[in-house]
């Protein structure tokens, strides 16, 4: 047994103006989960501590919270992996959400983004008009099973640094769930779905891999890349900055072997988009003043033909 002190964020939106913290010490085995430690605290010490939980087995997705500054399922986090040398564990509500009471948050923005996806199968014809069952080959199903494991715990949404500064971004879970329908052979709305998620800023993913901490190994980071590839393959919303950026990177690497920083800016914003270019001009001028501008004409690397051979063999899109 170990003495574990939970340092809990306390707030009740109905009465409190500012949050405070309370410290609750419990005697539990040190390998117990943070959720079980919280349950013990609530049962034995302070019944007013509020948190969401149901299954205690990483299936319901209710108990995601911030544990010592990083988000995860409390039911999947053993105390001895997070407590400090004095046995203290800080628990806070998930970031990127409004707290409601203690560790309970308002989940509405997360669900709003999810429902915008129309998260149900939309086949080309109605089930009653369809003579046979809708069959999916094992290979096609294999692409979907990992994503279907999503328990909508919102851990990825809470960890996402883009959501933290721009709530318009769909967030990792919604994009991963869009993938689940985009890649479903029974669905008939593939391109509409890609367009919808592109409008919800698919291309604003910062490639930070914060969502690689997904407790269910959905790995939204990889699914986001899959949806981007689908967008490029189907040529959906190709004039947006995201696809232009990706294709300009390809073009400059094929031409020079290097990522051409100058060309990247011109190609993404548009070399005739004067208003867009004027917006990045001040930073460009500040860099120029320090002699820090990338070269205007980048010299290709030696044997750049080899790079072109690779691009052509793999039929990499460059425009």
């Amino acid at each position, binding site marked *: 047994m170990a003495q574990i002190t939970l340092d809990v964020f306390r707030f009740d939106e109905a009465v409190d103006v500012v949050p405070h913290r309370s410290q609750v010490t419990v005697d539990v085995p040190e390998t117990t989960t943070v959720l079980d430690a919280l349950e013990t605290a609530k049962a034995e010490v302070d019944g007013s501590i509020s948190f969401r939980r149901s299954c205690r087995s990483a299936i319901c997705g209710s108990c995601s919270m911030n544990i010592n500054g*990083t988000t995860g399922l409390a039911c999947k986090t053993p105390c001895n992996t997070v407590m400090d040398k004095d046995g203290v564990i800080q628990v806070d509500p998930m970031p990127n959400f409004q707290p409601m009471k203690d560790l309970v948050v308002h989940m509405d923005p997360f669900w709003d983004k999810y429902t915008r996806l129309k998260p149900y199968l939309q086949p080309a014809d109605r089930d009653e008009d369809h003579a046979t069952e809708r069959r999916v080959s094992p290979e096609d199903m294999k692409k979907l099973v990992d994503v279907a494991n999503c328990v909508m715990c919102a851990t990825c949404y809470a960890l996402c*640094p*883009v959501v*933290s*500064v*721009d709530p318009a971004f769909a967030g990792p879970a919604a994009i991963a769930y869009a993938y689940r329908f985009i890649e479903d052979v029974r669905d008939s709305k593939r391109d509409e779905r890609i367009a919808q998620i592109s409008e919800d*800023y698919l*291309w*604003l*993913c*910062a*490639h*930070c*891999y*914060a969502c*690689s901490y997904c407790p269910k190994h959905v*790995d939204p980071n990889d699914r986001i*890349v899959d949806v*981007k*590839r689908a967008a*490029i393959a189907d040529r959906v919303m190709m004039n947006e*900055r*995201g696809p232009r*950026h*990706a*294709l300009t*990177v*390809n073009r400059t*690497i094929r031409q020079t*072997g*290097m*990522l*051409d*920083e100058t060309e*990247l*800016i011109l190609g*993404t*914003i548009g070399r005739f988009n004067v208003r867009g270019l004027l*917006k*990045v001009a001040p*930073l460009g001028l*500040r*860099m120029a003043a*320090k002699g*820090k*501008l*990338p*070269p205007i004409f980048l010299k290709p*690397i*030696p*044997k*750049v033909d*080899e*790079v072109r*051979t*690779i691009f052509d*063999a*793999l*039929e*990499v899109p460059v425009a």
Partner: protein
Amino acid sequence: MSTTLLPEQRAGDAHKQTKSSQSKRYGFFPGCVAKESCKELFNSAMLLADRLGIELVELTAASCCGASVVNDTNRDVARVLNARTYAQAEALGLDDVITICSTCTGHMRAANKELLESDVHMTQANAILGKFGARYNGTVTVRHLLWLLIDDIGLDRLREMVVRPLNGLKVAPFYGCHIIRPESVNGWESSRRPHSLEDIIAAIGGEPIDYAGKTRCCGFHIQLEKEGVATSMVGQNMRMAKDRGAQAVLTPCPLCHLALDGYQADSAARWGRTDLPTFHLPQLVAFALGVPPEKLGLNKHLIDPRTVMVAQELIA
């Protein structure tokens, strides 16, 4: 091993003793940005290597690593581009490729992992490399200079070599996502609680600042996608560092450097003025090891680090 990772989380080759580490002769992959807008990083790395008594053999015909973006359009191209780079290292008798960019580290390691773990991928890459007479035999390990400093040089040796300690300069580490995440690819240290940069800062006489932003994203990869988002990500992170008392930032990634150094002026409107100068990892270590500051390109930064260095009595 200075890591809190569980054994099963560690990437197999991250702590490997390579032939290169024994001969002190390493393949060197500077990456695009260190050759374009952050030349001071390339120069500092070479000067630091000289001071450490190691040889960095630049892979001059290497291409871009794919910069995390080429994956968005094609699942194979980054892997094959990097296989070409590794074949060049092997041809020079080198089994260790050292990077000075977090994004290069993560994406080159991801490509190498796929090549080494899948015959299908290795065969596909070598079929294309064969068109121009190259072949990758799978002997290369990719590591960041940060890892080399700790694993091959060692913190004790580094401490002994310091001739210009930082006088307790309060430095906020900023890791850059791709040197720590995903753990299955990098796995050199815990991505949630890394401390290699803190260890380096302490070893060269600085005081590391702990803050929540150190493992967060700088926004570089979306700087052009939507106005204000990357700027705000920088502002948020630098606000956290400044509020903890940081005087400067240290990063192993030139992409982070461009974002942190470039956007603080614009993020002030939302996050308040932070004005934290940002050092490249080899710049600050080379300075502490006695490389003359005028050779380190400190005048190339938009937020001039020399002001805080004068205040800390590090330079006149």
